[in-house]
């Protein structure tokens, strides 16, 4: 099977970084991409890189972060605000606060400003809103739906909305919200909105959920669980996992033998310590990559570990180039 061949290519990664990532991220015509994963795996860097890659290929992109985070600086902008701002050609970015989304939602549904304000200001409504299962999540999704469907002069404002979603523990409630609330709401305007959101989320021609992980045991385990949950019971279109920060291959097999001889005879030279460290990190990372592929029956898209960090000049651009290659995008 060609898939196996390509996965082996990824794992065998010659010379430099794993340049030969196969084109497997279906990103050509997607309208909504949700990026999630365990905390600290580099979701924001991957979101920024995806946004840049797609904008670089000529589509208009809105990058959204849910609650405060580091997406703005990674896109070369400052802290993001509630209104989309242009950060690069064809690329806008914004931050979404669930509390603001509540106001939008109630006004959109109630239409009468006065009534909406009275309702929003009442304590009982606030407690109710915070307590209602899935409601805060629904509000976030409702806002995203608004951006996906937004049109100006009959023309789409954004071709793609990329979301830097909350860490996996909170993405599951987010993505399950239409279903959770659906059991409580069977008719009326809320039910209609839910149905529209659910249709968007489960449509593989419009939506893609990207799970980001690092090649570390806990993150990989969480990715496998989340992947099964999202693709299984929730029926969402989930992309092959994106393994971020894969340690590069720096030494061949013959190098390793030479290094082992040196270590056996000499002392701890700084070069040897560095080499051993990199070898060991790479070895363990590949083990996790294999575990991930076995569990999900598909190879991952891998991105290199950046020693200077994604925030250094050229960091996000480097990841964007790899993701563009994985998605088969050209400028």
């Amino acid at each position: 099977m060609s898939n196996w061949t390509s996965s082996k290519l990824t794992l065998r990664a010659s010379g430099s970084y794993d340049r030969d990532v196969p084109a497997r991220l279906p990103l050509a015509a997607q309208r909504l991409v949700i990026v999630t994963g365990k905390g600290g795996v580099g979701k924001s860097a991957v979101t920024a890189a995806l946004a840049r890659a797609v904008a670089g290929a000529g589509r208009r992109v809105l990058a959204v972060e849910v609650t405060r985070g580091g997406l703005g600086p990674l896109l070369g902008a400052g802290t993001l605000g509630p209104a989309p701002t242009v950060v690069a050609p064809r690329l806008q970015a914004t931050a979404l606060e669930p509390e603001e989304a509540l106001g939008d939602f109630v006004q959109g549904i109630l239409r009468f400003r006065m009534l909406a304000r009275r309702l929003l200001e009442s304590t009982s409504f606030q407690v109710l809103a915070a307590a209602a299962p899935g409601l805060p999540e629904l509000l976030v999704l409702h806002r995203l739906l608004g951006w996906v469907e937004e049109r100006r002069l009959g023309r789409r404002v954004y071709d793609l909305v990329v979301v830097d979603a909350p860490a996996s523990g909170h993405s599951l409630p987010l993505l399950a919200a239409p279903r959770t609330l659906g059991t409580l709401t069977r008719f009326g305007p809320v039910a209609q909105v839910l149905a529209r959101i659910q249709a968007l989320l489960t449509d593989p021609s419009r939506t893609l959920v990207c799970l980001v992980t690092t090649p570390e045991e806990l993150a990989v385990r969480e990715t496998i669980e989340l992947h099964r949950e999202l693709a299984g019971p929730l029926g969402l279109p989930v992309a092959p996992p994106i393994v971020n920060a894969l340690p590069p291959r720096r030494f061949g097999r013959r190098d390793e033998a030479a290094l082992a001889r040196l270590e056996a005879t000499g002392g701890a030279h700084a070069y040897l310590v560095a080499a051993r460290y990199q070898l060991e990190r790479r070895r363990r990372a590949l083990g996790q990559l294999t575990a991930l592929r076995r569990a999900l029956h598909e190879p991952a898209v891998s991105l290199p570990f950046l020693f200077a960090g994604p925030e250094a000049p050229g960091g996000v651009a480097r990841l964007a180039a790899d993701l563009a290659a994985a998605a088969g995008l050209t400028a």
Partner: protein
Amino acid sequence: MTTIDGLLERRRIVFCVGSGGVGKTTTAAALAVESARRGRKTAVLTVDPAPRLKDALGLDTLDARPRRVPLGVGVHLDAVLLDVRRTFDEVVRGLAATPEQARAVLENRLYQNLSGTLAGTAEYTAVEIVFRLAEEGGYDLLVVDTPPARHVVDFLDAPRRLLALLDSRAFAILKDPTVILPASGSRLAHLVLSAVLRGLERFTGLELVREVGDFVRAIEALTGALRARVTAADALLRADGTALVLVTAPEPRLVDENTRLTRALAGLGLPVGGIIVNRMLPRALFAGGTPPPPDGLAPALVARLRRAHAELATLAARQEAVLAPLVEGTAAPVLAEVPLLPGDLGSLADLEAIARHLFPAPAAAPDSAGRVGR
């Protein structure tokens, strides 16, 4: 200089707080292992251990009972898995005067949906387990791993939030929405409000308003007992014998997160007592520029070695640059730096290796240890 010894010896409870992915769980376990090896009766309470750590600690089933982890002759550590999802049911059962009362709460459809989210009941459950062990476990030290940054605030503030909810007007309103009308309000006003609420339900399709009322009425029967218990748990969190240790790593994203977290915790009256920085590259190895290569190697290999070394030097410089801002916003001393060890950790041997970095002085042998700071 403040050391971990200095911090631990005067405490009965230590919470490890910090962002996701910085190694809180492993650090908590290593602290606990060392404390136990020094002869204090210690338990570690952990939220989400990796499989290897779970195996090492013998945490194979999900319940709040302590597991005994042997650490050598005559020394052991207890480990407890904090399952925050399940146990609020037990709190309800424990507080209810009659089984019927408990059932009225537990069988409410909203309770089933809400018990995880309503005003931090899940978080409170975890605090409740800590409280119970502190009261009844007879431990010298409890080391508590906590959920990631944003939620640790909910976690540590859970008792107060639960109390605030029980005492709030909103609680009364949920029970009976017509209380928002003045007592002298006309019968007509009550009728109008009820009609509006019914209309709202119909209009939005949310059948919530009435169910929330049912739920609140059901749980209210328990509030007296709950209030006393929650107040006691809250006092324990704020006691002198409790300390917070911020676990972090030298990554730029954590600078803001640490500052925000420390500020939020200080706002709750829970100051951070010290910081542990994980994942540091050994500075000495990468700080001194490019050393001359070992003799007798092929030039191609030397080039590759030089590159591997230079890359780690870049990483070390990045870590060094972020270290100062990382701890600046937190106004607490750095207690220890733990080197970035390759791969995933979790075995007891790994924990002991980490402990050696956490406690700079060589760890005393278990038989001669014992009375550390007592």
